[in-house]
Every structure is written in structure tokens, then in C-alpha cells.
């Protein structure tokens, strides 16, 4: 009897960790910063837990956060997309060249985002049609798209005016208060809501989960696995395109060398958010919280003046911890 009770509590705890894990992480990081001191022995909590700073953290989350939406879909489907950073750079360069060429902001956004979707379509097409490993295909396109970005940008950054319509999307105003938030933050939150509902409620969303959980079973159940895969990578490309526009807005320039290694930040956010790299499970809300957590870690350690290597070690540890938690809660299914 007592054993059963223990088992019940354990199972409940596991369920709770699955849903609340990323939030728990966020709370732990906040607690950590509440007590951490800088190299001069002073706490930085007054500046870290200030409305204005929360706004900064949110703005710093936007590019990784929007990328994490696309990456969650890919990872839930059992794949991976390593070309995310290159796509962000490519789309930001494309957008910048078009703005300099005189296109209106609406056209620029549409073309840049569709370009991302197009590259994703090619990725997904290659993966589905030739049954290639997503890791290899996107490793290739990571380099191809990076190169294409440099070619498009003539090997240098293309600057756009600081006051162009696109740049306003990420502009931070009224530094003391949380509101008004830059449009980019609202766009991220809106996209996250739509994607979360879509992944959970729509037939397509359930198909993505099915393909990621067990591809052959999904096929036997009548899921058109190849079409789902192509659509997932195209959709992910769309999100990376939007992230590229956000990056352009933030830098006020399209820089083909930006976002090197960004895909790893994005994947880390998704994993911290509770997704399993073996596919079949993942959470949009978790991914956003994961991105937020990493931005907060950087922001806080920066304000404490800690060396970069400390940040890198902490963020790495958090990722491993998150994967460990994931393994632990999955353990239930296997027993």
C-alpha cells in the first residue's frame, strides 16, 4: 500500500516535471540571480529584476524564440535542422538588399519569409524524397545557405537606415517600463500561441507527433509521412525566415556572418523546453521558456560582470541537466 502510494507520488512528480520543468528552471535561475554577487561583492538583483530589464531580455529572446518554434516542429517530427542559423543570416541579407533596393517593408518581409520557406522546402524535399538523414542534409545546407548569403551580400554587411520601417519592429523605447514592448516580442508571442494550438489541436499537428513517435506505425495508420516531413521543414524555414527579418531589424543591417552557431542555441532552447531529440514529444511553450531562460542567464551573468566562459559553462550545464530530466521522466514508460 505504502509502495503504491510512493509510486503514485513519483508518477505525479514526473508528470509535474514534464509540464513545469522549464518553468522550474526559470524560477531556479531567478533565485540564483537573487543571491548572486558580482566580482565586487555586490548583488545585481535591483537591475536584473527591473521591468525595463525584463523588456531587454524579451527582446533578446525574439530571434532564438521564433527559431525555436520552427525547430520544435522539426524535432517533434523526429528530425533536426542545422541550417537554421544560416537561414537567419541569408534572409536578413536578402531583406537588407531589398530595402536598399527600394522595396517597401511589406514586400521585403514577404519575400524574405517565403525565401526561408523555400529553402526549408528544399531541405524537406531532399530528406523525404531520398530518405536521407536530416542531420546530413541540413549540415550540407547550413554551408550552402551560408555561402549563398555571403554571395548575395557581396561578402559584406548591407546596412539599412536606422529609422526604416523594419528596424522599428525591434526598437526598444521607454527603457524604464515593461510596456510598450517592441512589436517583435508580440509577434513572437502570437506565433507561439498559434503554433502551440496548431501542434496540439490540428490534424497536421497530430501527424507531426505521430511521425516523430513511430514513423512506420504512422505510415500504417495512413499518415502521409513524406508530405508531413516536407511540410515540417518548409514551415520551419518560414519561421527561420521571420527570425531573419527580426535579426535584420535588430542589427539594422543584413550581415551574412551573423548567427553562426545560432542553430545550437535554438536546439538548446527546444531541449530545455522539454522536447526529446528522439522525436514524438516537445512543447512550444517550453521552447519559448527555454529561449527566455538562456537569454536571462546571459543577461544576468553579463550584468554581474562574470567572464564569458562562466556563462558558457553554466548554459552548457543547464542543457545537460534538461536532457537528464527528460531521460528521467521518460524512464516511467520503459519500466
Amino acid at each position, binding site marked *: 500500500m505504502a509502495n503504491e502510494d510512493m509510486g503514485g507520488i513519483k508518477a505525479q512528480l514526473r508528470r509535474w516535471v514534464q509540464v513545469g520543468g522549464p518553468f522550474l528552471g526559470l524560477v531556479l535561475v531567478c533565485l540564483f540571480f537573487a543571491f548572486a554577487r558580482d566580482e565586487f561583492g555586490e548583488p545585481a538583483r535591483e537591475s536584473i529584476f527591473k521591468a525595463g530589464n525584463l523588456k531587454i531580455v524579451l527582446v533578446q529572446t525574439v530571434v532564438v524564440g521564433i527559431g525555436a518554434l520552427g525547430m520544435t516542429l522539426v524535432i517533434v517530427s523526429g528530425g533536426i535542422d542545422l541550417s537554421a542559423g544560416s537561414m537567419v543570416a541569408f534572409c536578413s541579407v536578402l531583406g537588407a538588399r531589398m530595402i536598399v533596393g527600394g522595396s517597401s517593408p511589406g514586400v521585403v518581409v514577404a519575400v524574405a519569409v517565403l525565401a526561408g520557406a523555400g529553402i526549408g522546402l528544399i531541405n524537406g524535399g531532399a530528406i523525404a524524397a531520398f530518405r536521407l538523414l536530416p542531420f546530413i542534409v541540413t549540415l550540407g545546407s547550413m554551408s550552402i545557405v551560408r555561402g549563398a548569403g555571403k554571395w548575395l551580400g557581396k561578402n*559584406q554587411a548591407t546596412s539599412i537606415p536606422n529609422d526604416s520601417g523594419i528596424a522599428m519592429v525591434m526598437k526598444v523605447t521607454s*527603457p524604464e517600463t515593461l510596456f510598450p514592448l517592441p512589436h517583435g516580442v508580440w509577434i513572437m508571442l502570437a506565433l507561439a500561441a498559434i503554433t502551440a494550438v496548431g501542434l496540439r489541436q490540428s490534424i497536421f499537428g497530430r501527424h507531426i507527433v505521430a511521425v516523430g513517435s513511430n514513423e512506420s506505425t504512422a505510415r500504417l495508420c495512413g499518415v502521409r509521412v513524406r508530405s508531413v516531413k516536407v511540410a515540417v521543414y518548409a514551415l520551419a524555414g518560414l519561421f527561420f525566415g521571420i527570425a531573419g527579418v527580426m535579426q535584420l531589424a535588430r542589427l539594422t543591417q543584413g550581415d551574412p556572418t*551573423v548567427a553562426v552557431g545560432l542553430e545550437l542555441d535554438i536546439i538548446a532552447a527546444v531541449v530545455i523546453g522539454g522536447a526529446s531529440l528522439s522525436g514524438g514529444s516537445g512543447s512550444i511553450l517550453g521552447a519559448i521558456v527555454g529561449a527566455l531562460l538562456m537569454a536571462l542567464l546571459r*543577461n544576468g551573468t553579463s550584468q554581474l*560582470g562574470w567572464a*564569458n566562459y562562466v556563462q558558457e559553462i553554466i548554459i552548457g550545464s543547464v542543457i545537460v541537466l534538461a536532457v537528464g530530466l527528460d531521460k528521467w521522466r521518460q524512464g516511467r514508460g520503459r519500466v
Partner: protein
Amino acid sequence: MKSPLLAALALCCALMARAADSYTLAVIPKGTTHEFWKSIHAGAVKAQRELEKEGTKVRLFWKGPLREDDRDQQIQVVENFTSRRVSGIVLAPLDSQALVNPVASAKQSGVPTVVIDSDLKSDKQISFVATDNFKGGQMGGDHLAKLMGDKGSVLLLRYQVGSASTEAREAGFLDAISKHPEIKVISADQYSGATRELAYQAAQNLLNRYGSKVQGVFCPCEAVTVGMTKALQDRGLAAGKVKVVGFDAGEQSVKDLKGGDVQALVVQNPVHMGYLGVITMVRHLQGKPVEKRVDTGVSVATRDNMKQPEIDQLLNPPLKQYLDE
């Protein structure tokens, strides 16, 4: 009723802090591993120690972008220290454009910025503290003319399109040479590209064509100096047969200077740059007027003067004295 009281209290605190004359500065380089930035760091620490002696307490945060040369990460560092409300930021912007908005936001939040090393396309910074590259190029040109006995033919191998600092050096060099009528510039339209290897190839190609006619070359940066020297060595034109004036002191080019294959190096003073960056910021915070443009000086190092303490310090910056690593 409550909030004016609080405001008054805050004002008192601010005034007291003012009276104690203590500041927190964030010094933000482009990267942290390169020796040039370590020299800047050493200079900042030097300024901190001197200010301490005159009774001004300065706390320094030294923080580069998490990924070297990543503009977005540098923006994040600026934003984070703006949020921290440091007294001031000393920034070496990775890009003259991308860092404009963050510096403007910092100013809006009451955090002033001094820009060092590379210029920012903005009028929001307190001051720009950097090498006068045009003047450095001029000094290089005059020195090369002297080495050549005021006559002969020279080559200029340019660095890269769009690199503002080297373009200023190249312009300065051509300006100085134009005042020596007996000296002819036989090529000044070739660009090397970013790496030593590319510079080496470009120098080989140039010397293939002009090797027999040239008496002097000017190289606007470290990569070009090293590549050009290698190409001259290959053709047996080194060791002073063709005079070489380079720019910047790196390990290899200092070796070449010692060995006699490079006759002179125009060198910047990054320690002084870090030093003046911090000093300028603190003077501004103390309410003293500061110059909009501060020149941190260039010198010409030769084999003869490289042992003199003030030149030796530029070639081998005294990092150990200021940095505990």
C-alpha cells in the same frame, strides 16, 4: 506624497555617490582573446589605478561578446550593461552601423558611451578615442620616402574594400607620397583580401609584374605586411633591397623587423587607447569638458629604435603588469 519623498531620497543618494566620486564602467571590446584587446584591457586597468590614486574609485567590467566578432552578441552586452545602469560604457563597436541604436538607447537611459578603436556612425557618443589612421599612413609614407632617398618607385598593396581604418591609412600614405615629386606610385589599385594567404598571393602577383622596377612598398596592415614580406623573400628582394614599411606590430612582422626584411612598422598604441578611453569617460562623468576626437598616437618602429623603452612597450605591451593571467 510618498513618491516625491522617495525621489528626493534618491537624489540625495545620487549626490552622495557623486561626492564619493565612484564610478562603474563597462569596457566592451570586439573580442577578448586577441592580443590587441588584451592591450586595451591593460590600458583600462592602468587608468583605473591612476584614478584610484587621485581619489576616484572606478570599478571596471571587462566584457566582450560571447562569440568573438558577433554583432548581435555585442549588442546584447551593451543592452545588458545599460540595464545595469553602469555610470558609463567604453565601447569598441564591431560595426559602425549595427551598434548605433544600442548606443542611442543607452544614452536615452542616461548611460553615456565613449567609442574607442573604430568609429560609430552616430553623434550620440561622448567622444571617439582612437588612432589617427590617416596620420599613421602619412608617417609611413614620409618614412618610406626617407628610406628611398626621396626618389624611385613605390607600390601600395591595399587591404580590403570597405575597411575604414586601412582605407584611411592608404589615403594618408598616398597623401604623403604626393609631396615627394621624385617618387612615383606605380601601383595603388590592388587589394589583398582579408587573410595572410590572400595577401601573399596578391603580393606575388604584383611583384611578378613590378618586381624589377620597385624600390619601396607600403602595407596598410599586419596581414599585408606579412604576405608582402614573404613574397619579397621568395624573389630575393628582401633584406632591404626593396624597402618595406608595414602597419601594426604582430609577432611575425616584429620578427621580420628584427631580421631586417621589414624596415619600419607604423604602430598604434592600444594600451594608451584603453587608458584614454577610461580617462575620457571619467572626466566626462566628473563634468569636465572632453574632446570629441582623441588621438591615441602612432609611432614608427625601426630596427634601430625598437630597443628604446617607449617603442619596446608598443611592440611588447606590458600586459603582465596590469592583467593577472
